[in-house]
């Protein structure tokens, strides 16, 4: 059984070989008196449509077209090939024309979001497994609601038993908003624990003002707070993992349209 690292190494080497070969072919072509833009352009066009075919493959799940994971691997490495072809095609400059600028932006947005998505899909799952319980994204709001209910019940019970509103007041002012829904989205994405640390500090500081009965409820609140923090982290990370494609896919659609117009103009005005 080949491991992920071995597969990545193999695919990277093969892709690197192809890319090097492509660069050599391109430079040889460029040094001839042919127009290298046509070589890189047609290569790029073919790659773009192959990459777009991955989206279609996912929709045709009823057909036996090899596993989607294999298509994804192909999509990833062809994507890097497309970036290389694009770099050779355009060169180190921002185009000046309106159509070309739009196409350039669409490609950069598509390729950029794809590369970011690939990075996220490789880095974030590890963080997800390291922090808290693995939960299904769609269930997170329900789990947050569950924690909220538990914490509210805990605080009410403590208040009723002790007759002290210290813990309840703190909950009302500080914790109720926190348990109301996912919080600290950007802090979790950026890997910052400061917001939850500050909140925990304030909760811990409250302990000296609590009686013995309240301290038990306080200890349970700390645990719930930690669980809520884990859920917030999972929510933030999984949201990012799912939503980067909202940039990737629409940009691809725009790019495909502009590519066709670009090819039409190139052939109509090159004679």
């Amino acid at each position: 059984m080949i491991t992920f690292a071995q597969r990545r190494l193999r695919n990277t080497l093969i892709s690197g070989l192809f890319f090097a070969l492509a660069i050599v072919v391109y430079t040889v072509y460029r040094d001839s008196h042919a127009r290298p833009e046509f070589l890189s352009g047609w290569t790029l066009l073919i790659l773009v449509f192959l990459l777009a075919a991955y989206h279609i493959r996912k929709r045709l799940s009823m057909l036996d077209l090899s596993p989607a994971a294999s298509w994804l691997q192909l999509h990833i490495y062809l994507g890097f090939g497309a970036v290389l072809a694009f770099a050779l095609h355009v060169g180190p400059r921002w185009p000046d024309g309106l159509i070309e600028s739009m196409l350039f932006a669409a490609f950069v947005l598509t390729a950029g979001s794809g590369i970011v998505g690939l990075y996220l899909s490789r880095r974030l799952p590890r963080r997800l497994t390291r922090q808290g319980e693995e939960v299904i994204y769609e269930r997170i709001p329900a789990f947050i609601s569950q924690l909220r209910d538990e914490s509210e019940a805990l605080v009410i019970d403590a208040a009723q038993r002790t007759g002290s509103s210290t813990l309840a007041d703190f909950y009302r002012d500080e914790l109720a908003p926190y348990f109301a829904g996912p919080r600290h989205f950007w802090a979790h994405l950026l890997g910052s624990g400061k917001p939850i640390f500050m909140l925990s500090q304030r909760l811990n500081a409250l302990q000296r003002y609590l009686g013995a009965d309240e301290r038990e409820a306080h200890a349970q609140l700390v645990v719930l707070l930690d669980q809520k923090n884990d859920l917030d982290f999972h929510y933030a990370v999984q949201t990012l993992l799912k939503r980067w494609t909202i940039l990737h896919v629409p940009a691809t659609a725009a790019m495909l349209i502009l590519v066709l117009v670009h090819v039409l103009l190139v052939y109509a005005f090159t004679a």
Partner: protein
Amino acid sequence: MNKKPLQRFGYQDSPYHRPNQDWVCGYTDSGQACPRGPEASGKCSGAGHCEPLQQEGRWKCTRSDLAGGPCNDGPTSDGRCGVALPPCQPRRSLRAKRRLVSRWITAITVGLLMVVLGGQQGLALLEPGPRVSGHAQLQACDACHESADHPMSSWLGRVFSGHAGATDSQRCLLCHGVGEAPELAHGLSAQQREALAPAQPMAGAGLKVRWASELLVDPTAPLDCGQCHREHRGTQADISAMSNARCQTCHTQQFNSFADGHPDFEDFPARRRTRIQFDHVAHIGKHFADAPEGAVVPEACGDCHMPANAQGMMVMRGFDAGCAGCHAGDIAGAGRADAPGVAILQVPGFDVQALHNAGMVTGQWPEFAEGRGSAFLESLLQADPTAHAAYQRLRDADDWLDLSSAPLETLQAAQTVIWAYKRFMLDLREQGASALVQRLIGDSDRAAERQMRQLVSGLSIHVIEATSDAWFPDLAAEWAAYVAGELPVPEVVAPVITASSVEADFDEDEFADLFGDSGDLFASDETETEIAAEPVRPISDGIPAPVIPDSVPAMPSSKPQATPQPVEQASVHTEAVDDDEFDALFGGDDLFSSDVELDEDDTASPVEKKSVALSLDERMRLGGWYLDDLSLRYRPAGHADALLQAWLQQAAAPQVVTALADPGSPGRCTKCHSADRANESEQLRINWHVARPDPHQHAFTEFNHKAHFSIMGDAGCMGCHQLNAEADYAAAFAGTDARVFASNFRNLERNKCATCHTGGQAGDQCTTCHSYHIGEFAATEPLTRLTKALSGSP
């Protein structure tokens, strides 16, 4: 306290989520699940917790275990759920949102394109980038692009059907003239390229270049302008840039860089001898060093050479700056032993007596004419085929002054030439100098006629009349008689010629005046006996006599009546000249009252003394037309004499060109100005100018001298241009093939250039020194309505 697990699996413990559907439960965000979530269409199904199932006549609750299992009250009797539900809250799933965004983006993109393409500025907005500044004025796309002439709806079809031969490159060529075959590499045919750079085995270049060369490059394939010139890359873009590798892939002799492998300068810059014969070694080493005191000699290269243009080509400063100090006198004829003027017309000498003896009619003919006429004679006779044929035949005769043994055909040819010459002289007298022009080029070639006007520049009618009167005093009457057949057949003279008979023909005093008192003209060469023994063929030797009418009047003696005298340049004579003035200018009537005689005449009047104080040559030192005995001469006025240049450029008179091209000819033009022709069949071409910038000539290699002045060391120009004393520079000018030469200078050393011209310093791009579009081609005409209409271009 430990954390309790939140995630539970099992249909009774957790709801089933379908994020792949377009609609999901909107309550999910608040932690609640929709017991009966939205359908795929986004609608909420049912108003209760379950859809009751009828079994055995009873309605049974089907609420899921997850929602609490069958409810206590169960369905109503009519089969409706007894637990009412608030309506579900459909919400688009992430996938649906993504699809929606994609559709919006697609619609926006298409809409934007339609606005761009359909608007007033549609084509302009399609421009892929600013044009280079030189093309800034080309506002309309169809100035360069043929497709812009057609509606957008046709573009897709044109992508597949092509452009029907109308290419954008052709529109480039409307403004950019790059030769007759711009689609070929360098604008040259394969044969021309092979001649310039013979094919060689590829070596020395990198692997990529060799692959490109061997696999992709077809030197015979046509090239579009756009293959090298990339437009729409900014106003300051270098659209002529070309990589070294692109050059190398085609070039058969490949190398790594200018410093490593570039061919040495074996034939650069000189591929031919210099146009002006100037021996640098001899001048610098000898003539300048030995120049007499006061002579103007150059002290540095810059005294004679200077940059000609922005490209820094070095040219000569000109004759006046560099040569006149020593050579002006040569051209004017100072110190010449022979006449300093070119004999344009000269009376050829014939053995008139022999012609008479053979029954030929000659009329008057200058008795002392000798020679075969000037080099111009044949050219002047070319207009008359009969005369020209006669001249050709006559040319084979060894001695025109002794035709006594010549065959009849030669004698008849001489007669024909004589009358043709007289006819020409009559035409010249009656029509003026235009007769000379017409004889040479006719009336048809008006372009050449403009040049021919230069050939007779300054030849006034007075000079012509004086010449005609001197040579053929009664030409008009004689010609009329000849045409009428009224000229008499001369009497046959007995073939006895002795010294006494010669003496009898001359007055002794006159003879003494001419040849000196003591000289016996014939004593040293031939004895009387030898002369007397000269055979004379009687007319009865079977030679048919010419058909002459019986009533031919007697003609005067053939001895010239008037003495031709020097005539000053015609421009002086703007009015009719009366006899006294004429005499004052040209002397008396006696042809043989020469300057010598006049100089010795102590009895001459003061006016006469003044007029004869200078010799003929001295009086004509400023140049011009003049009559010198039996020659009408032209003396060059100085350097770059327009008349001599015109004659030497006159293709219609190759004999004249050949004669004038003699370095010893008056004017001595070809002493310095080399004459070229690749083979004997070609017309000699005199190089009037040094090599100098020609806007129509596009050299393969260019060197900017000016750009290198600041880096010259103490040796100056000679740091690169080193004299080669061993080269036989002058020998190359004995021939006419300019390609055969020995340079005055050693080959330039490539290593000197390569010390700076490397990739890291002054650059070693091929295009630093070399041009792609080479050869001779003119700039195209400006595109006006007229030129467009004439060329049929859009």
